[in-house]
């Protein structure tokens, strides 16, 4: 008896129409805000990366030059010569 009534209550409840909603504008606004926030949080990191790059270029050039100089086969030959022969 109660089970039938409960089933009837559920059947009646299923007939209800939900209220209409339009969330497309709100979702797109949230999405844009999220994108802006993400870009905003990435911007300082981009500046740090750029500064590191600028500092790394001269250091890399200096290192390459020094390495080439140290690995030059003529350097050993030049080192064995007297100072007045150079």
């Amino acid at each position, binding site marked *: 008896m*109660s089970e039938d009534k*409960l089933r009837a209550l559920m059947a*009646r*409840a*299923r007939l209800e129409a939900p*209220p*209409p*909603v339009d*969330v497309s504008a709100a979702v797109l606004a949230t*999405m844009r805000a999220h994108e802006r926030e993400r870009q905003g949080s990435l911007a300082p990191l981009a500046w740090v990366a750029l500064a590191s790059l600028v500092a790394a270029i001269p250091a890399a050039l200096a290192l390459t030059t020094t390495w080439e100089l140290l690995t030059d086969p003529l350097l050993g030959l030049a080192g064995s010569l007297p100072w007045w022969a150079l």
Partner: protein
Amino acid sequence: MTQAAVLMLRDPPAFTRLLMAARSGPVEHASSAQADAADVHDCRAGDQDALRRLIERHQARIAALMWHFTRDREAHAELVQDVFVEAWRALASYRGEAPFEHWLARIATRTGYRFWRRREGERRVASVPLEDCPELRAPEELEPSRAAELLQRLLGELPPRDRLVLTLRYLQERSVRETAELTGWSPTMVKVQAWRARGKLLRRFEQATREAEDE
């Protein structure tokens, strides 16, 4: 008179929904799935119009699901919005193995369940005694919105897990397999949980109607 004619006379909006559901055949479903696949692809590439199309195509269905989780219009609109925002964030993980609609329903179920758990403390304070509702004695004569309101109050007295399984199985009329997919539980777990929850609901319903009759 046929059942459809009775429904048309007693509840025109429900009859219109029934008619719309009957009209949407497999061809329409297939084209919708294709449109979903194309829009998901474009959306991943950052196309906002594609996201808008996805929302517009699915929001009525999601709104109907979320109405079972809250009857507060403001909270309902927020829940529907939350479902789409979460779907957009998780879009990269959608592999297209299941229809987009099913994937979205899983997100909606999770969102609704989380909402219930968050409101668990508030629920007990806000609940109004059902014993003051004598119309529960003849539920078949109730207006659908009143029936839904009373049912949600009844369900509101159960823990979120029980409410979830009853909502999916008996209010949304999902199969055990579908309920298992939506909740992430095993089919056996769904059956056991539904059986226990249904018993609790029935006992609470009997108590409320008995006390309403005594008044």
